[in-house]
């Protein structure tokens, strides 16, 4: 009994790393049983596909015939492929339309909720658009923004402005899609930021108020600096998500008009499932992966670099 009591104390376990002892072997065995289903799921649907994807990206393959190994040809061709490069620019354009506005609006909403709105009933309203499927959100806005009958255009018409084609125009399609996704994600962003804000002790604001600081000043001098970790999290995850936009485009513009909204995921989808160029598509997806890793690292570096100044 007494040995067992010692054994279960994690600290004691760490001092003696010889996990080959009897009780230790049992714990190891149990632990592996506990993680076994996840390990199988991970291996079959994450690890092996990742490795297989890497292999496929070095082949020319239409899914049905035998893959031909082509070395780095897919990557070389992609980098010269005007359509692929265009899709990268279009995606970047989308991210730039989407993220800054979404984050700023999220911040404003979070401040309003943090300082003035009490009761979590209101807060859950922020979650509603985020809970809706992309497909449903896309359909709702397809109707609201319909060039002929959509209420937006009817309204524009009523106040004497020309009707707009929104999803149907080369120039407007991307901003429109960005707007739709801001509608869907801004509340979620605000909720995450709000969670960070509520961890800031209230007496910091009390002190600020006593010193006669305005809400605006308190926001810039207290809230924003203390919010850095949460903002980093929000920015990194939302940028990574934004780069992968697909559903909204699949339902509304299908990459068009012309190629105005052919973002990278739509390009990959077309290469794989419309042209059956699986090697080419997989190589493109891996380039996206590399881009995302770089973008995330740069963001974290930038946001952390400032952190030390403020500490």
């Amino acid at each position, binding site marked *: 009994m007494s040995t067992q009591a010692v054994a279960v104390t994690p600290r004691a376990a760490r001092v003696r790393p010889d996990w080959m002892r009897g009780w230790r072997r049992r714990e190891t065995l149990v632990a592996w049983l506990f993680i076994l289903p996840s390990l199988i799921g991970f291996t079959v649907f994450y690890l092996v596909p990742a490795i*297989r994807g890497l292999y496929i990206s070095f082949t020319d393959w239409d899914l049905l015939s035998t893959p031909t190994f082509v070395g780095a040809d897919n990557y070389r061709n992609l980098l010269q492929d005007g359509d692929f490069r265009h899709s990268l620019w279009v995606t970047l354009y989308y991210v730039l339309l989407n993220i800054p506005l979404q984050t700023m609006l999220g911040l404003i909403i979070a401040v309003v909720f943090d300082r*003035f709105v009490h009761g979590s009933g209101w807060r859950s*309203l922020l979650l509603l658009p985020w*809970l809706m499927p*992309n497909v449903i959100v896309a359909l709702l806005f397809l109707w609201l923004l319909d060039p002929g009958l959509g209420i937006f255009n009817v309204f524009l018409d009523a106040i004497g402005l020309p009707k707009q084609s929104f999803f149907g125009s080369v120039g407007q399609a991307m901003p429109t899609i960005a707007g739709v996704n801001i509608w869907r994600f801004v509340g979620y962003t605000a*909720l995450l930021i709000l*969670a960070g804000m509520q961890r800031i002790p209230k007496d910091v604001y009390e002190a600020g108020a006593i010193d006669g600081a305005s809400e605006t000043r308190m926001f810039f001098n207290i809230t924003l600096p203390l919010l850095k970790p949460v903002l980093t999290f929000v920015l990194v995850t939302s940028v990574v998500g934004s780069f992968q936009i697909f559903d909204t485009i699949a339902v509304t513009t299908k990459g068009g008009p012309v190629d105005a909204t052919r973002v990278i995921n739509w390009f990959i989808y077309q290469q794989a499932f419309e042209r059956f160029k699986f090697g080419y598509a997989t190589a493109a997806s891996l380039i996206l992966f590399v881009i995302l890793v770089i973008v995330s690292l740069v963001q974290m570096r930038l946001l952390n670099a400032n952190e030390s100044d403020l500490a």
Partner: protein
Amino acid sequence: MADLAVPQPAEIEARRTRRGPRIERDRTGAWIVLALLVFITLFPFYWALRTALSTQRDLLSDPTNLLPVGFTWASFKAALGMISAEASVAAGGSGRVFHFWRYLGNTFLVSTLVAVGQTWFSAMAAYAFARLHFPLRNQIFTIFLASLMVPGIVLVIPNFVLIHDLGWINTYQGIIAPGFLMSPFSIFFLRQFFLGINRDMEEAAKIDGAGYFEIFWRIILPMAQGPVLMLGIITFITQWNDYLWPFLVGRAENVRVLTVALSVFRSQTPNGSPDWPGLMAGTLLASVPIMVIFIFMGRRLSESIQFTGVK
């Protein structure tokens, strides 16, 4: 609570006179933001409802009326299969068949299985990662975490190939398999909660001779009931909303889920004049389960989601 930071009466008085008017002005701004937010969040749903209850013909002639024009339940009835295609056409619908009940059943089946399987197996793994000591624990966990960085599309193509090779295209197991055994996010989310559970009860149970599974089942799961339930619901909703994967592997009528069905329904309708009342009726019906979850769980869900941001 004795709080040393509480301002003295004189200070409070000073603050009141100095900040009184400003707070009022800020508050008005806050209420305007809140009112706008409520309107922007809810209007698309209201407009969909108004459209679904209108007659196609009358929508053309009276696009501005805030109430349904030519009020009719026909679109809902058609979507629910309560009237024949002929009757639906007579009422101005497209007459396209939308087997709502079948798609709903499919979506429920798929989402429930993934939510239950993924939550259960991820909880087991999360317990092992949070509490048990075994070789390679940290390495495996780090690899799981790293996979969160991999964009979905990278794994979608090889996973599609795998499901294709297994002959699982257009089967339930094909749609369910990748999410059934785990998701790195679920394991990470639950591990964070399990780490926060006080160890005293576990230690006591161990001394009483309880096994690891008993501790997991009788102590960890009950104490983390709320988070486990919330994760189950988030997983359910994520699966409910998923589009690309079921679109790729489950387009056939008999396994089609709602998101796929809606996008197919939309692409079948003629481009010039889609059956908007029909489409909006289907869209609203497809979002009813999410709405129900939102109404009953919205508050707790928003709290759980906030937790993901600050950890």
